[in-house]
Each structure stands twice: as C-alpha cells, then as structure tokens.
C-alpha cells in the first residue's frame, strides 16, 4: 500500500521493486511528512504539494517507461519516529530517493542517507546540508537559510535610509532549524557593515515574547531577522505591536507566507517583510499553469492552496526531473540512488516557471540556488518587492 | 431488620472467605459477631455494606436483606443513604482532613444539616480527647485517638444500622469500657441497631443481646449473649484461659483449638 500517486498500480504490494509492472520500471520515492506534529500547519500543505505533483504526472500519463510512486508517511516532527519511518521507506518500500521535511531529522539522517546512497531533498534549507563531504546525498532546492539571511543583509545595505550603519537583531529558536543560519548571518553582517546588536531566543511554541522584545528594544535595532515558524513569528509581531516597537521585522522563508497574515491579523502583519522563496498561488506565474490544471481536474481552485503547497510541488518536480534524467541515462535495470543523484547533479538551470528560482546542481554543488526574493505584506497580502536575486550579485 | 442468609463471598475470584453465613439482626438490638483471625467477620460486614467490590471481592451466593429489601447489589453510597453504616476495620480515617472535617465527612449523607454542629459537640463529649485535637490533621493522631475518631465518625452518620468492626482495637481499657457503655447508651436511648465485631468477647457480649461465632466463613455457634458468656469453650477461646500465662506454657506448643 502506501500513499501512492498511482493508485492503479499500488495494489500489487509496494515491496516489489520489480523492474517491470506492465513493462515499466518501478521507482519509489519516499516521503517524510509532518502532518500531526509541531510544524503540521506548514507541513500539511507542503506534503500535499508533493503528492499533488506526483498525481499530476500520473494524470498526464506518467513518465515514459517508469512507474513512479511517492510513498509518504507522517512522522509528526519527532526525530526518532523519522528514523523509524526512514528505515521503513528504505527497507520495506524500497525507496530510492527521499523527499524530507525538517532540519533536525534531515541532519539526523544525512549520514545514514549517505551510507544507503539515497538522494534526499528536504524542506530544510540548512547551510550544513550544502557540505558535500558530510552530506553527499542531500540537495537543497532553494536558497539556504544562510543565503536567505545574506540576501536580506544585502537588501538592507542597499535600502537602508539614514546615515548610521544599519543595526540588526536576530530572533530564532533553540533548534537545529532556528540556529542554522545564525553564525553565517553574523559573519556576513560583519562583512557588509551591518551591526548585529542583539539576539533573542524565542521558543517555537512561545505564547508571548515580551521580555525578549523589550530586551531587544533596549538595543533599538533598525531591523530584526526572524527564523521561526508561523506561530512564533505571529507572536513576535503581535507583541512588538503591543509594545510599540518600530523595528522592521524580516522573516526567512518559513516565517513568511499566508499564515502570518491569518494568525497575526492583517493590521499587525502590515509592513512585515519576508523571504518569498516560492510563488504564491495568486501570483501569475507561467509555472502556475500546471498547478491550475491539476486543481481544475480535482475540482479545486487556487484559493484552496497556499505558498507551502507550491513549495512542496516544486521540490517534487525537481526530484522527478532528476529521475527522468537518470532513467534516460540508464535505460536498463532498476534505477538506483546513485543514478538519481547523478541525475540531480546534471540538472542545469531548471526552469521552474517562476514558482521558485531556477536550480542547478553539480557534483561539487548540491545547493540548487542562492537566489531568493523578498516581499512585504501590503493590504493584507504578500507582494514581492524584489525579483529573485543572489547576495553575490 | 437485617437478615443475611447463606452468604458466600470470594476475593479475587479465588479466595473463598465466606461459606454460607446466616445471621439476623433485629431492630433495636446489639448483636455481637465473634471469631478468630481470618474467620470472615470483616468480610461479612463489608459484604453487608457493599464494600467488597472495592477489594475485588464478590458475593457469589446468598442474600442480604435490609428492612425487607434485598440489598446484594446496591452500591455502598446508596446503602449509607438507606441507613447502613460501617466503621471499617483499621480506622481508615481521612489522614489529610482535620478531626473536625472527618466528623463532617461522617455526616455526609445526612439531610438535617442544622443539627450536625451540635452532634459534633456530642461526639466531643463522648471523646473529650478529640475536642483537644479538633483542628489537627487526623493522620497525626495516635492509634487510639484515630479509633475514637472512627467511631465518632460512625455516630455522626446517624444510621439505622451501625456496623462496628473491632471498635476496641488499640483503645486503653478504661476507655474501652466507656466506649461500650456509650454504645449501649446510644442503643437504648436512640434505638440504634448495632452489629459489632469484636475480639474482646467479654465486653462485647456484656452489652449485646445476641451473639454469633463464626469460624472459617461459617457460623459455628449462636445464642443469647448471656448464654454465650457462660459457655466454657467460648470463655477459654476468646477470653483466654484466665490462668497465668507463664504457667500454662508447657502444653501450649502447636496446640490449636479446633471447632
């Protein structure tokens, strides 16, 4: 069984890795989702996006010569559970590639993944995963958290008004996810002449953050970068408004998205800036055509999905792209992890139709892109304020 | 008033504690229930007051009839409302409640809330020591003080039938006498019916009208209290030989009284 993009063939028992079911080669991609855990609010649409892309492929007749399946399971954002499910995907479902989720579990699995030679695309854009030696099978499909931070710094330097050097605070939580970009941001800030005046740790599940914000206020930073999820970000924005703090808050990609406006309220979110690593459904991008086609077939509209859905869709699409390349290159026998890795590594400037920055990989580069863009909440809606750009430009 | 017939009870579905007990308590009487350790006295009282289930015990046969109604399957709190109250063995006072609160707890099911206060004063008259300890947590009381409290709590309930399980346990002799005199008095003045389990057969029979002796879960003897008092076997078994203990030792080893 398993959650399958291909219901017609999923009944034959997924454990068979037989190279022909109807003359097709079976390729199983494993998925680790957070549906019921702490990040389920964004994890659910993301997982849906991934599944949707596989369903869409199926709808369009699938990939030539392949029987492509996505088998995903909920690990509720608990690392031990992720490890168990990963084993299940590897040993029972015979997955040859994985679509993952959190920073903690992705990092926890990276060595195992390397040993098992399973290419792994995670929703975590932790800079650590770029390191080819430590994580030879991990791939990043959007700008890393650190690169996002650097992009923000670049934007700040370019847009800062006033004579003094811009000052910056960092707000994050005490998890692998939260701390991932902090050192890099501090280093880069020094480079570009932004002064990091304060750091505050705010729990992912914080229901208030007043003491931290008051502390921050003492340093009176011009900007504050938030590396959090929707819940904590909304708490920060709301408390900041309550306390009348006029710092410009800027969130990394998980601290941006529709949820902020929904939870914090449009008036609180107004003026908040965030990294928009992926397109919103309402943005008129060429890449949206596919999604709309899929939604139409399902009797849904773009209002039923959000940016995180798009994000999942894109991750799945990149993985499938790599599988296609691998399948072409190795037309015989079962597709293996290393072959798919090769496929990924040969992706060059993959056009995502504006849904995200184009990605390229190489054997010595698993970071798909450094490009990202910024947006602002205006009239209760996210609006891009830059195009995709790299801090290196 | 209370008629127990052929009662059989087991604990944990395997330990047979009562093997067909029958007894009768008439309204206004004091009935004494005697027997050695493990005879099933406490079990009988628990069965009557519905408290067996809490120890994983069950009535497997026989009936208990109270004022003409079969009460085998009535829950203990209902039974208290019907007027049966058990002063459990081992005191079982509420340790974390004060002495006064314990007495209030005894009166839990009473409707006449107004007279509770004065009844508490009455208990303090019976047991002046308790008055001194009024606001102390009951858990700190000495063994005997706890026993007084347990009896007092039973009296507070103003039941129709009071079941007392070894009220004299751990009570100093002077007070034992006093307690039993009080029991007698309450019985006479207020017509309270009492079924009392007691090791101190002498004193129990001296105030009781009727007595039962049970061994191994069966009634082995019954009769008017006065008659039982005079029975030689009984006095030897329950009151001791009366001889000096030191003298009677040579022939005591492994001797068991078999009924």
């Amino acid at each position: 069984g398993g959650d399958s993009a291909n219901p017609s063939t999923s009944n034959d028992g997924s454990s068979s890795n037989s190279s022909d079911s109807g003359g097709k080669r079976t390729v199983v991609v494993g998925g680790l989702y957070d549906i019921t855990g702490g990040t389920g609010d964004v994890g659910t649409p993301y997982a849906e996006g991934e599944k949707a892309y596989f369903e869409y492929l199926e709808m369009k007749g699938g990939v030539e010569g392949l029987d492509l399946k996505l088998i995903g399971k909920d690990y509720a954002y608990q690392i031990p559970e992720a490890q168990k499910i990963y084993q299940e995907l590897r040993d029972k479902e015979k997955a040859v590639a994985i679509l993952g989720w959190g920073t903690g579990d992705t990092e926890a699995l990276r060595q195992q993944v390397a040993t098992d030679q399973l290419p792994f695309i995670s929703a975590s854009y932790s800079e650590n995963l770029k390191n080819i030696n430590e994580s030879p099978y991990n791939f990043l499909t959007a700008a890393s958290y650190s690169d996002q931070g650097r992009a923000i710094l670049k934007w700040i330097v370019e847009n800062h008004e006033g004579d003094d050097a811009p000052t910056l605070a960092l707000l994050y939580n005490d998890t692998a996810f939260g701390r991932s970009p902090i050192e890099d941001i501090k280093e880069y800030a020094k480079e570009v002449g932004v002064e990091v005046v304060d750091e505050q740790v705010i729990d992912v599940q914080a229901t208030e953050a007043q003491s931290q914000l008051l502390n921050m206020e003492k340093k009176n930073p011009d900007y504050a970068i938030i590396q959090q999820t929707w819940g904590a970000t909304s708490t920060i924005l709301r408390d900041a408004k309550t306390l009348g703090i006029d710092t410009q808050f800027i969130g990394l990609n998980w601290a941006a998205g529709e949820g902020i406006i929904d939870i914090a309220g449009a008036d609180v979110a107004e003026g908040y800036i965030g990294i928009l690593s992926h397109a919103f459904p309402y943005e008129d991008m060429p890449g949206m055509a596919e999604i709309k086609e899929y939604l139409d077939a399902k009797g849904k509209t773009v209002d039923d999905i959000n940016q995180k859905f798009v994000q999942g869709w894109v991750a799945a699409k990149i993985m499938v792209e790599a599988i296609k390349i691998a399948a072409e290159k190795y037309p015989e026998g079962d597709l293996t992890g290393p072959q798919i890795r090769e496929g990924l590594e040969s992706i060059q400037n993959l056009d995502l139709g504006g849904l995200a920055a184009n990605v390229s990989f190489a054997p010595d580069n698993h970071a798909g892109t450094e490009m990202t863009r910024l947006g602002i909440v205006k009239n209760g809606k996210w609006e891009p304020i830059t195009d995709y750009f790299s801090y290196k430009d | 008033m209370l008629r127990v017939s052929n009662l059989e009870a087991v604990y944990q579905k395997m330990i047979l504690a009562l093997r067909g007990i029958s007894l009768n308590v008439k309204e206004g009487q004091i009935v004494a229930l005697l027997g050695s350790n493990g005879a099933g006295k406490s079990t009988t009282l628990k069965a009557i007051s519905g408290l067996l289930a809490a120890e994983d015990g069950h009535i497997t046969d026989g009936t208990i009839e109270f004022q003409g109604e079969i009460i085998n399957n009535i829950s203990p709190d209902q039974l208290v409302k019907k007027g049966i109250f058990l002063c459990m063995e081992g005191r079982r006072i509420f340790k974390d409640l004060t002495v006064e609160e314990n007495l209030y707890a005894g009166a839990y099911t009473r409707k006449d809330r107004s007279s509770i206060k004065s009844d508490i004063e009455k208990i303090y008259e019976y047991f002046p020591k308790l008055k001194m300890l009024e606001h102390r947590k009951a858990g700190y009381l000495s063994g005997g003080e706890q026993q007084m409290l347990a009896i007092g709590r039973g009296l507070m309930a103003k039941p129709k039938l009071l079941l007392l399980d070894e009220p004299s346990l751990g009570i100093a002799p002077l007070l034992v006498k006093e307690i039993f005199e009080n029991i007698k008095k309450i019985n006479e003045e207020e017509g309270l019916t009492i079924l009392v389990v007691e090791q101190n057969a002498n004193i129990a029979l001296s105030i009781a009208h009727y007595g039962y002796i049970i061994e191994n879960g069966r009634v082995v003897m019954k009769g008017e209290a006065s008659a039982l008092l005079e029975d030689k076997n009984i006095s030897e078994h329950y009151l001791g030989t009366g001889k000096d203990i030191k003298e009677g030792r040579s022939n005591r080893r492994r001797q068991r009284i078999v009924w």
Partner: protein
Amino acid sequence: MFFLQMLINGIVVGSIYGLVALGFVLIYRASGALNLANGEFVLFGPYVCLVIMTALNVPFLVAFIGTLLFSAFLGLVVERLVIRQLQNAPTISVIMATLGLSSLLAGAVHIIWGHTTRTFPPVFPQTPLNIGGIIITPVYLWSFIIVMILLVIFSIFFKYSKIGLAMRAVADDRQAALSMGMSVKFVLAMTWMIASMVAAIGGILLGNINGVSPTMSAIGLTVLPVVILGGLDSVMGAIIGGFLIGIIQNLAGGYLDPLVGGGLKDVVPFIVVLLILMLKPHGLFGSRGIERV
C-alpha cells in the same frame, strides 16, 4: 520602568498559567493523579467556541456558555469511559491513561479541525492599554480578572461545600469515602467536569491571544512547574505559582537572557522549582503527606 513592565508582564502571563494549573489541582485533589491530558482539554475549548461562534453566528458570550456546557460534557465522558474504569487501578495507571487520553484527544482535534491555525474574531478590545507607561493587552487583563474570580470561587467551594470535602476524602481513601456514603463516581465526574471547564476557559483566553492551533496544548507541560511550585493540592498555590513563574520567567528573560545567550524563559521555571522543592518538598502551599507509624 523596564522592571515594572517585566513584572506586570509576568503577572498577566502568570494568570493564564494559574488558570491552566487550576485544572491540574482539581484533578489531583480528587484522585491524586496528574492529568497529563490537561493541555488537550485546553485545546478543545477554543475550537468549540470558535465553531459555535462562526457556525451558529452567535455572540461570544453565548458561544462561551455553550463551550462550557460542551466542556462539562467532555469531562463527563472522559470520566465515564476512562477514569471510572480505572477506579481500582494504581494512581500511576490513571496518570498513564491521561497520557493516552492526550494523544487520543489531540488526534480527535486533528481529525476534526485539521492543523491550520485559526484566529478568533476579536472578542476583547485589541488596542493595548497604556497605564503610566506600562502596556497591557486587554485579553491579559481579562484573564487576570477571571483567575481572581475563580480563585475566590474555588477557595470557598473547597472550604465550605460538601462536594469539596468529599473530593478530598475520595482522594485520601476511596474505600473509606465510599463507606461514608460518598459516591466516588459522582465526585469524580464532578471534578472532571469542572476541570474540563476551567481548562476551556484557559484555552479560550489563550486562543484570543495567539490564535487556535493544535500546538496550543503544549501549555499543559509548560504549567507543570507552576502546579508543583504552588503545591499539587492547593488552589491558592496554583494561582500564586502561576504569578510567580510568570514573573520569574519574565525577569529571567529580561535580566539573565542577555547573559547566557537567551532561551532561559523555558528553563528557568524548572530550575527555580527544583531549588524551591529542596526547601519545601511539597511546594509553597501543598500539604505535606502524612506518614505516621
């Protein structure tokens, strides 16, 4: 000023803690068990309230009362189906059962309402009050008031009502309580109903602050130090403990965080509790277990 603002913040946040802690105390008093599903009881309240408000389009107050009724019912169901079945089991089994319950209820919430965060239509005024430079959000002020009212109600309840006495008796010695004619079933049912309602109130206030999402149930664990600090069986303790932990958290956050690189807010309550317990093993107001031989 900074200090004062921290202090006030602590008190207002603490009042929510106290409210949630109260739910623990109630259950503990009647059954000696820690209700580890308290966080999930907190969760149900705001969801139900939200549903009533939006689906039936009734004003908040009506929905609020409806929620209380529902919560009482939920408490009753839980007691009937779970707690009552464990009447003769050791307390630790009951604690474990509440843990199972927490997973079950969380699952139920997920099934019914999904994972997205919802927001309350503004019930309390949104503009913060500025009292001499100290800023307070009205929701917090309300929770403070409600906590105070509940403190009075429960103190009176435990001291003077028959059921209050019965609750304590039942917790002390169940069999003996039965022999007093106390219906253990009734007492437990009452307790769970009340505790569930208290949790719902806490949840609704919390939902008004941060929106409603399944992660809210984390408050259940957050307030454990509060309950312990105050003393497991003390209503007063729960509330004062709530204030204290709220204040300590904020002061630690305010003054110590900058020294250690942050993150103390969630650790400090436990450190404080550990220290205080070494001096007062039953919390500040908890009653000492009685052991006599």
